[in-house]
């Protein structure tokens, strides 16, 4: 199978959907003439023209609102945020408007659209440029939330998101746009709301998503060297949460660790821990544990970035605690 980068997988998803459905357009900062701040939309202006690939001024609240309004009126906008940090300016439109449209209009209007862009830290970018917001949006009824950086999953899920009749928050990763993965030439869709078992195992379940999947897989590799078999689940969709897949795994492994780039208070892992203790209490041989970012703002210095983010070493230690190996 051919191998392509995450940015190309995302681009192909948008291109295919735009060819298929003339009501789909892409709007955001630097998406057209500059070919995307991170080159995700490279070449799209050439193919689709300025009517459908639209550069905006730096006016997040304004163009998000134009997206929601357009979505109410028979189009399917893809609104790109240069990063999700900047979407904070537009959160009014995402939360107070897009997420509420079906409810407050008694089902007459909807906002079938995608808000997408890179999320989370990307090196030494300091406090304002390093935030991960999956749990914020996942808290909101009316939204669906996807977070992935695997090229195959990203393409299939973005296509589903564009076709979905509800507003979808789609989170990528700035530092992984160049990451390669196998993606077939043929068209495929991946359903929203389905987690994927990325590695089958029997001794412990590790759940993760987006770039922390690298940590999860790295930990599983390390464990394998000690003949411990970890099952690794990539959530891919955060809301709706596919807890059934996690329960099935925990029934087998009896142990669960969540690795996430999220602040701990009310994190995605917090929700999973609640659900699993409720649905699989009798199967658990150890408390559900999670490893998150520090409960802090991310500082600039390299050692403080390293201390802030989950890594293989600390996650491995935690997994071994769950396996009662360190005590």
């Amino acid at each position, binding site marked *: 199978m051919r191998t392509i980068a995450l940015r190309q997988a995302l681009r192909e998803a948008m291109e295919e959907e735009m060819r298929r459905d003339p009501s789909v357009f892409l709007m955001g900062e630097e998406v057209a003439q500059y070919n995307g701040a991170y080159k995700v939309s490279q070449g799209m202006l050439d193919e689709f023209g300025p009517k459908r690939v639209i550069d905006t001024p*730096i006016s997040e609240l304004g163009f998000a609102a134009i997206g929601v309004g357009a979505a109410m009126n028979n189009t399917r906008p893809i609104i790109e945020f240069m990063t999700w940090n900047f979407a904070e300016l537009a959160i009014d439109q995402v939360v107070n408007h897009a997420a509420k449209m079906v409810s407050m209009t008694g089902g007459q209007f909807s906002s079938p659209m995608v808000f997408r862009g890179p999320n989370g830290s990307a090196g030494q970018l300091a406090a304002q440029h390093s935030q991960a917001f999956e749990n914020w949006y996942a808290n909101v009824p009316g939204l669906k939330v996807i977070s992935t950086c695997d090229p195959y999953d990203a393409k299939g899920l973005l296509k589903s998101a564009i076709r979905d009749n509800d507003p979808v928050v789609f989170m990528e990763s700035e530092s992984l746009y160049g990451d390669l993965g196998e993606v077939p030439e043929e068209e495929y869709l991946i359903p929203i709301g389905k987690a994927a078992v990325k590695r089958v195992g029997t001794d412990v379940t590790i759940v993760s998503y987006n770039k922390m999947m690298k940590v999860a897989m790295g930990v599983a590799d390390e464990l394998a060297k000690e003949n411990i078999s970890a099952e690794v689940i990539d959530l891919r969709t955060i809301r709706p949460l596919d807890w059934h897949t996690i329960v099935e795994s925990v029934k087998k492994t009896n142990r669960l660790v969540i690795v996430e780039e999220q602040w701990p208070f009310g994190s995605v892992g917090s929700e999973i821990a609640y659900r699993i203790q409720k649905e699989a209490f009798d199967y658990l041989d150890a408390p559900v544990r999670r490893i998150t970012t520090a409960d802090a703002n991310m500082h600039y210095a390299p050692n403080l970035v390293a201390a802030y983010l989950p890594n293989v070493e600390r996650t491995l230690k935690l997994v071994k605690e769950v396996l009662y190996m360190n005590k």
Partner: protein
Amino acid sequence: MQTPFDKKTYLYWYELMMLMRRFEEKAGQLYGMQKIRGFCHLYIGQEAVAAGIMSATKDTDNMITAYRDHGLAIAKGISADACMAELYGKATGCTKGKGGSMHFFSKEKRFFGGHGIVGAQIGLGAGIAFAEQYQGTDNATICMFGDGAARQGMLHEAFNMAVLWKLPVIFICENNGYAMGTSVERTSKVLDIYRLADAYDMPGDSVDGMSCEEVHKGIERAVRRAREGGGPTFLEIKTYRYRGHSMSDPAKYRSKEELEEYKEKDPITNVLKTIMDNNFATQEEIDAINEKVRVEVEASVKFAEESPYPDDSELYKDIYMDENYPFIVD
């Protein structure tokens, strides 16, 4: 020939602009060597804006800007040592290695940052000015933002309240022609950005940002109005950045000719010419200034190299003022 300013002012401008320029040329090199990480936006080309502001304000006036903050921080008096150490992420930096390139701050020098969210500081600047008015001082606040930032809704809300409450703030749009790869022409039909002030009955003006003299004059008038209770002014200062938006931008969206056209008007070259034409300094004196700047920049690199990184325990420091905050640690 009669110059509008005295010898002292020209020499001040020259030395300050040379320090900004050489400091950032060095920072650019060090970025290439990966000594400096993250985003790094250079101010090279825009130095006359900082220089003209400084000669027309006093130390107790406040300044706030965006992430393109190295030059302005140096102008406001943060040492090259503290700036370079910050770029390195060292504990001796002007925010202790916490903020990096985009977030230089100094409470002592009344430099309020260093902000990464485009346009947000337009409102913050109005707030800083509000507090000066509230406390009955005559300090002015210099609030700077880019041409791209001028398209944020924040500008309109902040302008309106600043006029309504006669806040002692000078809003400055440093129009360097581009917001990342987007030229001003592609962001609005209002190309004379200073005219946005008209909508709120705020005095607005356009200023040549390649000229220290013109910047000084524009700021002087605006600052006087602010101190006398006349409220805010909006100045669009036309300037140019010689480098890309940040270190990762090859700036293919503009022509070599356009860049050369601005380099012809280089403020450092111009100030030096005025100094020489008027015999304000001998070549030896200029050489001595250049050498002083060179030594200062070299010393800042040595200082940064030799400084320690923050201790790992700093991870949970400077999150709250409350030193006993119970963080969630598992």
